[in-house]
């Protein structure tokens, strides 16, 4: 008899549990999509259109029932998130939200990287790399480690030197200290000017409209559309010569290059220019020297060499890298290969 009662109690408890669950479960044909970072739920089930067409109060009740079900589902998901008590045991329960997943358009385009300065461009072209130098150097006179630059730098500040060498062939009356000061001032001024130039260039690159005319706006202006039509028209093998004309298009629409493929000089015109041109041509033909743009050739050669060196280095490095590491592990040689040397070790080397 006791056993029966236990079973009954268990069954009752189970039923109760199910009853409790029933109050928080919602049946949906299609599952909802959630974006918990935005506290967002998307219900793709079509609502009962016929019933919603009804009168005010009935519609309101239906809408609220729908909203209740959806909110219940969303809240159930939110309560499943990892939660903790904020500010100790007695604090409110705080759930950690995931990152918002629903993709929304940005307010502004992502920030552009700063364009390289003139020097950076040049260094890139020539393959000049930054080489790391320690900030401290050994000062022989002071017998201690000092900064390479700036206040209390190694070797003393050249601007405050009490002695200045008079270079060979210089005017003996000239004040060498004044000359040094002037040169320094000029260097600083030039550097500042270059800095400002770089800034201006970066600014210009930032504000310039990137290839503007075909920017995909929602509706394009009259001029933009005209331009696009014109470009499309001449974009055939025959430069649009056999293109059928649009209803109100003018007979000879101006093309991109003004409709001319070749350009001829006028028969009668600037005689001096024509003569000089012909003479130039003749001089080139008669001279033994090859026509060569030296700067360009040198640059080309340099770049080629650099590329070869880079390729060879890449190959070598991959081999050498492994070997080097192995040696280091076995022999226990550390430091000295690269990177800044700590002063205490470097001092003993000398």
């Amino acid at each position: 008899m006791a056993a029966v009662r236990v079973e009954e109690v268990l069954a009752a408890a189970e039923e109760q549990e199910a009853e409790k669950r029933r109050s928080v479960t919602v049946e949906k044909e299609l599952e909802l999509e959630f974006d918990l970072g935005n506290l967002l739920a998307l219900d793709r089930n079509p609502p009962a259109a016929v019933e919603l067409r009804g009168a005010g109060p009935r519609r309101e009740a239906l809408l609220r029932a729908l909203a209740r079900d959806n909110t219940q589902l969303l809240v159930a998901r939110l309560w499943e998130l990892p939660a903790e008590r904020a500010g100790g045991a007695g604090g409110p329960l705080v759930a950690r939200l995931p990152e918002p997943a629903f993709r929304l358009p940005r307010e502004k385009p992502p920030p552009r990287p700063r364009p390289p300065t003139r020097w950076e461009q040049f260094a890139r072209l020539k393959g000049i790399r930054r080489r790391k130098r320690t900030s401290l150097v050994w000062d022989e006179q002071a017998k201690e480690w000092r900064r390479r630059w700036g206040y209390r730098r190694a070797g003393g500040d050249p601007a405050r030197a009490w002695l200045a060498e008079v270079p060979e062939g210089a005017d003996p009356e000239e004040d060498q200290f004044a000359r040094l000061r002037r040169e320094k001032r000029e260097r600083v001024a030039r550097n500042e000017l270059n800095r400002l130039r770089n800034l201006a260039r970066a600014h210009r690159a930032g504000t310039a409209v990137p290839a503007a005319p075909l920017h995909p706006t929602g509706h394009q202006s009259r001029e933009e559309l005209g331009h696009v039509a014109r470009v499309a028209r001449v974009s055939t093998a025959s430069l649009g010569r056999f293109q059928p004309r649009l209803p109100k298009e003018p007979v000879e629409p101006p093309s991109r290059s003004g409709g001319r493929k070749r350009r001829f000089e006028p028969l009668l015109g600037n005689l001096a220019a024509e003569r000089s041109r012909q003479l130039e041509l003749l001089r080139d033909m008669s001279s033994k020297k090859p026509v060569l743009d030296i700067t360009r050739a040198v640059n080309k050669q340099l770049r080629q060499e650099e590329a070869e060196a880079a390729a060879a280095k890449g190959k070598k490095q991959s081999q050498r890298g492994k070997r080097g590491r192995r040696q280091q592990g076995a022999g226990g040689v550390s430091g000295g290969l690269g990177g800044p040397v700590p002063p205490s070790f470097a001092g003993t080397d000398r």
Partner: protein
Amino acid sequence: MDALDRVVKPKTKRAKRFLEKREPKLKENTKNAMLIKGGNANLTVTEYATFLFLTICIFSPEFFSKKSDCSLFLFGSHNKKRPNNLIIGRMFDYHVLDMIELGIEKFVSLKDVKNSKCPEGTKPMLIFAGDMFDVNEDYRRLKSLLIDFFRGPSVPSIRLAGLEYVLHFTAVDGKIYMRSYKVLLKKSGCKIPRIELEEMGPSLDLVMRRTHLASDDLYKLSLKQPKALKPKKKKNISHDVFGTTYGRIHMQKQDLGKLQTRKMKGLRKRPAEKSAEDGGLSPKKPKST
């Protein structure tokens, strides 16, 4: 240097900070909205807008967006041809991206419903019901626009008991029903509370009128995320189909001789033994450096 090359730089720190705040950022700030009252906006429209809040009565969103650094706008107007008109839109790079015109057919304001309200600045739960929001392109954009408008700041965590505001959008029969409810969390006997809703207002019945949507190219451009924001791939961690995480650990070989087992008095070494062992081991020890 030419006069044209010169860069106009901010003269004060404050101006500099101001400009920096407006520059494009990697991780963007919360979007601001400007609410604009048209030349003759009537009570319905104004009240809806004041539900959000507003002023000004000229309309050039791009100009004002640049002035006020707001990328969302809402413009309310009323005339014979389009009564109770509401235009919702957003900007990308100070140019209009999307604009959707909505007509208000029925409006119940916050004041008309005599119920308790939720505090200002509560982050709402947003729910969109109806297959139209998934099928139709215009509705899809409207959904995205409304989410943008109402989602508020994105937060890392939220107080569960503070979830008390729901905005529910239902699209049926070419109409959009916007309802806002206050959430009541009831005890249910299990961990998840039972939800009851209470009408709070404002509630609107909207119809979509004209739309001005960004072309697909532009929309795609505006969705583009900077590379730096993409999560970096973590090394040595992998997942299988069932969501189990596998880690790869690189370890040195374990010396089982040195393994610390249970400490007992009987196993303890005597001092003499210890010193002998140390002496015996030291010559064999490999150079560590």
